[in-house]
C-alpha cells in the first residue's frame, strides 16, 4: 500500500471504521512508514482535541430551565390532540398543500357565490325553473313577464318532469322580475292572480299548472348554509350564502 492510499484510509482506521482486510493492510504499512504513523498521530490528536473541547464547552452550555421545560411540555400536549397522530392542526399544515389549497379555494368560492351568483343560483331551483320554462313554452309571456297564460294545461311542468335545462331558456334577471310585478298585477286577464296569495316556493309548480300565475321572484332565503366533507381527509368545508353580505363582507 502506498502512502497516499494509506493516508486516506487512516481517516477511518483511526476510529475502527475500516473493514478487517483494509485495517490489516494499513497496519502493515504503518510498520514501515514513519510518515503515516505521524499522520495517524495527528488525526488522533485532532479528534481528541475536538472531543475534549466539546466536553468542556458542553459543561458551560445552559441547562434547561425547568419552568421553560414545563411550559414547553404543556404547550406540546395541549396544542396537539389528546392522542398523538390525531392532530387537527396537522391537517392544515402547509406541508399538505392539497388541503390548504382546497381550504383557500372554498373560501374564494364562498365569496364568489355570495356576491355574484346567488341570484342565478336561486333561479335554478326547480320551482323557479318551472315558471320560466312554462312561460317560454307557452309563448304568452314577454321577457318582461307582462302576461302569463299557457295555451294548454299540458304545457305546464312539475318539478319532477321539468327537463328544460336552465341553460336552454333565458332566465329572467332580477331586474326583469322586479319589473314584472307591477305590470302583472293590474292585468285584468288574470283574475286568479289578483286574489291569489303569493305562492310559496313549493307551491310555484301548482300555481303554474293552473295556467295563470303571476311571475314572482322565488322566495329566496336570506341565508343558506351548505357543507360537504372531503372523504380522503375528513375536512369539512362549510359554505355560507348570505345575500345581504357583499364581497367585502359588509352587510347591505
Amino acid at each position, binding site marked *: 500500500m502506498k502512502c497516499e492510499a494509506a493516508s486516506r484510509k487512516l481517516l477511518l482506521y483511526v476510529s475502527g471504521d475500516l473493514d478487517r482486510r483494509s485495517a490489516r493492510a494499513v497496519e502493515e504499512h504503518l510498520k514501515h512508514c514513519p510518515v503515516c504513523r505521524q499522520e495517524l498521530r495527528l*488525526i488522533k490528536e*485532532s479528534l481528541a*482535541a475536538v472531543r475534549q473541547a466539546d466536553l468542556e464547552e458542553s459543561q458551560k452550555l445552559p441547562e434547561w430551565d425547568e419552568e421553560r421545560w414545563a411550559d414547553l411540555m404543556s404547550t406540546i*400536549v395541549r*396544542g396537539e390532540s389528546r392522542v*398523538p397522530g390525531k392532530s387537527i392542526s396537522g391537517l392544515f399544515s402547509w406541508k399538505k398543500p392539497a388541503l390548504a389549497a382546497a381550504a383557500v379555494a372554498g373560501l374564494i368560492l364562498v365569496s364568489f357565490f355570495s356576491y355574484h351568483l346567488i341570484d342565478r343560483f336561486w333561479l335554478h331551483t326547480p320551482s323557479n325553473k318551472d315558471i320560466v320554462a312554462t312561460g317560454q313554452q307557452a309563448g304568452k309571456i314577454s321577457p318582461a313577464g307582462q302576461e302569463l297564460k299557457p295555451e294548454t294545461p299540458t304545457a305546464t311542468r312539475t318539478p319532477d318532469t321539468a327537463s328544460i335545462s336552465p341553460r336552454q331558456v333565458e332566465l329572467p334577471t332580477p331586474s326583469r322580475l322586479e319589473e314584472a310585478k307591477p305590470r302583472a298585477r293590474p292585468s285584468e286577464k288574470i283574475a286568479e292572480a289578483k286574489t291569489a296569495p303569493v305562492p310559496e316556493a313549493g307551491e310555484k309548480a301548482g300555481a303554474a299548472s293552473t295556467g295563470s300565475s303571476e311571475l314572482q321572484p322565488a322566495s329566496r332565503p336570506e341565508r343558506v348554509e351548505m357543507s360537504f366533507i372531503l372523504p380522503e381527509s375528513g375536512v369539512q368545508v362549510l359554505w355560507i350564502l348570505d345575500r345581504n353580505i357583499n364581497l367585502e363582507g359588509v352587510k347591505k
Partner: protein
Amino acid sequence: MDEREKELVRKVLSGESPAFEELVRPYRTSLLHLAYRMTGNMEEAMDITQETLLKCFRYLHQYDRTRNFRNWLFQIAANLARDWHRKRKQENRLEMDLRQKDFDRDHSEETVFNQPSGEKTSDLQLDVNACLAKLSPRERQVFVLRDVEGLSIKETATVLKTSSLSVRVNLSSARRKIRDIISGQNKYGRVRSQK
C-alpha cells in the same frame, strides 16, 4: 428501546399525555447539544429542540419501536437542522456570501482557538463551532453524529437516511479538514484570541 420506554410510548399513545414528559426528559440535554453543534447557535438550537419534541409527540404513532428512541429523536433533529441550513442559505444567499468571506478572511489568519481571559497564552481552548463552521452542512452532520455524539457509521447513516458509504466519504472529508485546521494552527502558530 427498553421496556420502560415502550411502556411510556404505549401510555402516551393511549392518551396519557403526561407520560410524554417522562419519555423525552432523559434526552433533552443531548438533543439541545446536538442541535447546537449542528447550527452553532443556541437560540436556533433551542427552537430546533422544541420543534423536535413537538414532532416527536405528533408522530409518535409512526415510531418503529424496534428502533433506538434516541436515534429517532436525533433523526428528527438532524432533518430540522438540515432544513434550517437550507432555509438560511436560500434567504440570505448574498448576505451569507459576504459573511462567509468575512469569516474565511478572519479565520484564515486567526484561529479556532480561544484564549480564556486571565490565562496563559499557551493555555488555549479549541472553538468547536469555529471548526465545524469550516465543514459543509453534510460533513458537519456526519462529524457531529459520529465523532461528537458517538454514533456508529450505521446509526449515523440511519439517522441521516443515507448510505454507509456516503457517511464514510463525508466523515473522511470532515476529519481531514478538522485535522488540517488544528494541525495547521499548531504548525504555523497563528493562534490568536477571538475574544
